């Protein structure tokens, strides 16, 4: 691909610079603001301080929202990974109309407008009297499941089926084959599916908007209602920075375990 003209390359280079500035600047501003020593947002901040992080953990509603979001993300990612892995193991080697339909069903929440799913679940939960926490948990599972399904499906399809057949011909039953052969070979896919489900749940807005209840608010919704009703207090910047930091830690951890290329390909 040496055909690039140099004006073309300059155009692409400047578009890329502009795009990265527009994409990353808002995140950068939030992180800088979180370390402000001042009462109100000033840019650039006159110094550095951790007072807004202290304030974050002092406020009950913020701390509770943070803990709830962590619990939801850990639990829903785990359930979604189990469900997605089961579905992927079943569908990976199947073809035909029914298998195709089921694959579309499992992937559908990925592109489905989540605000509609949130409203639909709210009506269902109101009718059957579902408590808030399991309701949120199930919503986050539905949204996280496609990510796990997709990454595990790709891993199973990349697997040489003769390995499983070898296990079975040597006398291993289906359960032994699954736990001793298939799972150890696809665990990269399982793990990156779990990471995606965790991250998606931790930042989820559209279903939690409808399904959060009194005293049970997720961190993104708590940030949203603070911004809407109490203005941009800098404790929001601290909350946002904690969100960003947690995601960096997760991505870095997974990068060490699974490798960079796999995270990107699984997208």
């Amino acid at each position: 691909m040496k055909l690039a003209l140099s004006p073309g390359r300059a155009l692409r280079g400047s578009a890329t610079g502009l795009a990265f500035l527009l994409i990353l600047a808002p995140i950068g501003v939030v992180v800088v603001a979180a370390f402000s020593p001042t009462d109100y947002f000033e840019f650039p901040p006159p110094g550095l301080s951790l007072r807004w992080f202290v304030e974050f953990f002092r406020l009950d509603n913020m701390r509770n929202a943070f803990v709830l979001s962590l619990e939801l993300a850990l639990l829903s990612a785990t359930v979604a990974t189990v469900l997605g892995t089961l579905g992927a193991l079943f569908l990976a080697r199947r073809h035909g109309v029914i298998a195709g339909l089921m694959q579309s069903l499992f992937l559908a929440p990925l592109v489905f407008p989540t605000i509609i799913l949130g409203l639909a679940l709210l009506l269902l939960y109101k009718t059957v009297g579902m408590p808030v926490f399991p309701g949120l948990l199930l919503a986050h599972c539905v949204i996280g499941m496609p990510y796990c399904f997709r990454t595990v499906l790709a891993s199973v399809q990349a697997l040489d089926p003769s390995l499983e057949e070898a296990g079975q011909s040597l006398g291993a039953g289906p359960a032994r084959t699954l736990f001793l052969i298939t799972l150890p070979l696809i665990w990269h896919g399982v793990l990156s599916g779990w990471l995606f489900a965790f991250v998606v749940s931790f930042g989820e807005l559209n279903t939690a908007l409808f399904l959060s209840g009194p005293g049970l608010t997720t961190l993104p919704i708590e940030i949203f209602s603070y911004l809407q009703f109490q203005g941009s207090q800098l404790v929001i910047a601290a909350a946002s920075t904690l969100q960003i930091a947690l995601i960096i830690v997760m991505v870095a951890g997974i990068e060490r375990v699974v490798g960079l290329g796999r995270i990107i390909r699984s997208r």
Partner: protein
Amino acid sequence: MKSAWTWALLAPPLAVALIFFVGPLVYLFYVSVHAASPSELYGDALTLQNYSSILGDSFYLRIIQRTLGTAAVILGLCLIIGYPVAYFVALLPSRRRMVVLLLLLFPLMVSNVVRAYGWVAILGRRGVINTGLRDLGLIDVPLDLLYSTEAVVVGLMTILLPYMVISIANTLSGLDPRYEEAAQSLGAGPIRTFVHVTLPLSTPGVASGMLLVFLLTLSAYVTITLLGGPRSKLLVSMIYDSVVSFQWPRAAALAFILLAIALALTGIIMAVLRPARVQGTGR
């Protein structure tokens, strides 16, 4: 025996998908064709009035029009900025491409409320731009940059841009360079090669990027509310407003109108770009 075992694999994910995804949507549709009720979620009478009153109301039609217009501008900007960026990324050596793609993926993992807050901090009356301009002595009174359709467009466009770039870059970097070499050896210049070879071959990436950006724009309630304020409401804001005023059948009908728009536009994008004619011929 073996088949019973494998079907047991399918039962749990299928049950969750049917009970908590398909089921609630069917129920939502059921609610949308019932009359409102002051005490219950919906009344007894079966009616299409929820739909007809929305589609016959010029207020809602203006909102739908504004939603489509805003989405079209966001899509256009994402495509115009995203395509050259994707081309740049696709030409990078593989290790550096990975790093750049990770830099694009990371913002997508940060919650949209955080990224919208970043734009509030940049565009607000005490924000980065207004303080900067005041310190330079260019303005005395802060500019009202926030709470406008333009703010929604800038915010959503930058929030969703990585989807467009990643989709197109993945398609472009998977292209066989021999197609372009063949076009050139047959005498096509770089522009002709791009228009007649590279661009058509990249339609699967363009189509999936456009679909993601469009569908996520439609349901981006939080970003639209924080950056658009009360004057720049879109269709999704109407769904939320109906919910907080307990107009359940109306909210349900609005949701299905939103869904119909999403499906129609998906169909149009697929029909115009026809990504399927490229797939499977890349190798």
